[in-house]
């Protein structure tokens, strides 16, 4: 066993990352990602074939030279011009230029596909350090709502995603649905997503945006139209009124402490706009932009010390008594 083997095994294991379908451009589930995947496959085949052809030509050249040398037949080499070789060279140049033009054209058409299409639904995503604010826009203002770190889309519909940033440059990337698009402060970018398969996928900030860039993930859930509409109606409602005594006490603590300075819970006095909207926080899959699962224990750990799982994030540890902490967790886990 050579010491190189573990290193090679590690390098090969890196390739396994592409096998999971949750966050892989090779497991496309949307029209735009499929367009990109087609260009990618085309490029792989063209470049792969070219590479093999060049290697064969090189090997043939070496073999020819080596044979000529053993035959002691070096005289005249490189002096006489081989007509056939000239033609082969010209054909090769033409082939390469043609293939490159084809790739450029295919890439341009795929790019056009990403940005232009009629939208059935408009969502505005604002990236912040280090989470995603997701706003579902509607011509009727009463049907406009804000959520965070979770993008739900109906299957077989064109969703126009408007991308903005509140602080630094971020990049929106859901590999199974589309390519990357930057979110730039002061600029309005937009892409269209057309998911074709229901399921849960993962997006990730793809532009280094500060300390917790790695912990800036986005859950993407694709559902059929009926399930999406049901979810939307539910999100439009104000927050559930707590019924258990602990949850009622938790709601009071939440509204009267520093929590409400940054977070909104619609239907209660809490109306801060600088942190994620928590109106239906318990319906989401993850906490803190994909850093923690949505579980009671994780929620308690997060509120007790947000700087431990995600150091440097903008949520300060709020001094709460253990009783108050338990009540607030009870309250938040009931916000469905």
């Amino acid at each position, binding site marked *: 066993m050579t010491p190189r083997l573990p290193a090679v095994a590690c390098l090969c294991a890196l390739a396994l990352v592409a096998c999971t379908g949750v966050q892989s451009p090779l497991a496309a589930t949307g029209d735009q990602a499929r367009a990109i995947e087609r260009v990618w496959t085309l490029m792989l085949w063209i470049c792969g074939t070219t590479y093999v052809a060049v290697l064969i030509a090189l090997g043939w050249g070496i073999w020819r030279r080596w044979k000529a040398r053993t035959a002691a037949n070096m005289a005249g080499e490189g002096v006489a011009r081989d007509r056939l070789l000239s033609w082969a060279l010209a054909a090769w140049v033409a082939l390469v230029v043609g293939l490159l033009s084809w790739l450029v054209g295919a890439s341009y058409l795929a790019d056009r596909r990403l940005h232009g299409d009629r939208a059935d639904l408009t969502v505005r995503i604002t990236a912040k350090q280090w989470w995603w604010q997701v706003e579902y826009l509607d011509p009727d203002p009463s049907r406009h709502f804000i959520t965070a770190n979770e993008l739900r889309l109906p299957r077989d519909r064109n969703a126009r995603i408007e991308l903005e940033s509140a602080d630094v440059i971020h990049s929106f990337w859901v590999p199974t649905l589309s390519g990357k698009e930057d979110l730039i402060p002061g600029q309005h970018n937009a892409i269209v997503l057309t998911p074709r398969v229901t399921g849960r996928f993962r997006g990730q900030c793809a532009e280094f945006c500060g300390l917790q860039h790695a912990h800036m993930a986005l859950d993407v859930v694709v559902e059929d139209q009926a399930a999406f509409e049901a979810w939307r109606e539910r999100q439009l409602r104000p927050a559930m009124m707590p019924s258990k005594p602990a949850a009622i006490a938790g709601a009071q603590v939440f509204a*009267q402490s520093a929590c409400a300075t940054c977070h909104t819970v619609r239907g209660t006095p809490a109306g801060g706009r600088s942190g994620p909207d928590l109106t239906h926080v318990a319906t989401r899959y993850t906490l803190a932009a994909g850093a923690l699962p949505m579980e009671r224990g994780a929620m308690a750990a997060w509120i007790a010390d947000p*700087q431990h799982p995600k150091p*440097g994030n903008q949520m300060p540890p709020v*001094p709460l008594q253990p009783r108050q902490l338990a009540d607030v967790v009870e309250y938040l886990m009931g916000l469905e």
Partner: protein
Amino acid sequence: MSSRCRVDALAVAGLAAACLALLAGGCERERREYRNAPEVREPAQPRMTDFQPGAPTRATVDPVGLHYENNAYHITQGGRLFRWFNCNGCHGAGGGGMGPALMDAQWRYGGRIDQIHASILEGRPNGMPAWHGKLTDMQAWQLAAYVRALSGNVRKDAAPSRRDAMAATPPPIQMPEQPPRDGDPSATSTPQP
């Protein structure tokens, strides 16, 4: 010849070490602390003025405040909170509006960092709301440090060199230092006939 070479090499090495040591001086200015210890002590009640009968006593600044005041990270975070919590609504990027200007030398309730911290948490008459319980203690200190930076009263190496939002005033690092003067400006101005 060889000893000469050795001396030169030593001098170069010494110079390089001195340059590296200078770089290390920058470490402290931006040391990032993300959490403060849970508050157990009673909030300090700094005096708002040194106006008193008898000989003036020497005011001492809360050492916690000095720590925040000299840290670039805390000052920048204070600027972020200043925008988030709409301090601009009344203090207009430090220039004043409904509330007093924060970029001059006039301080009605004291311009030391612990006095500003107390003003933020306790609120002041004629409109300044009390933020106690709405901000964590750390956030209040960060805001106070940023407010000090608006009138050029923090260390130049810790002051932010740019503003993150639109502003009519220069960034804090370019503000002339204006040491706080106590009292209401109307009390010192000459009365109009």
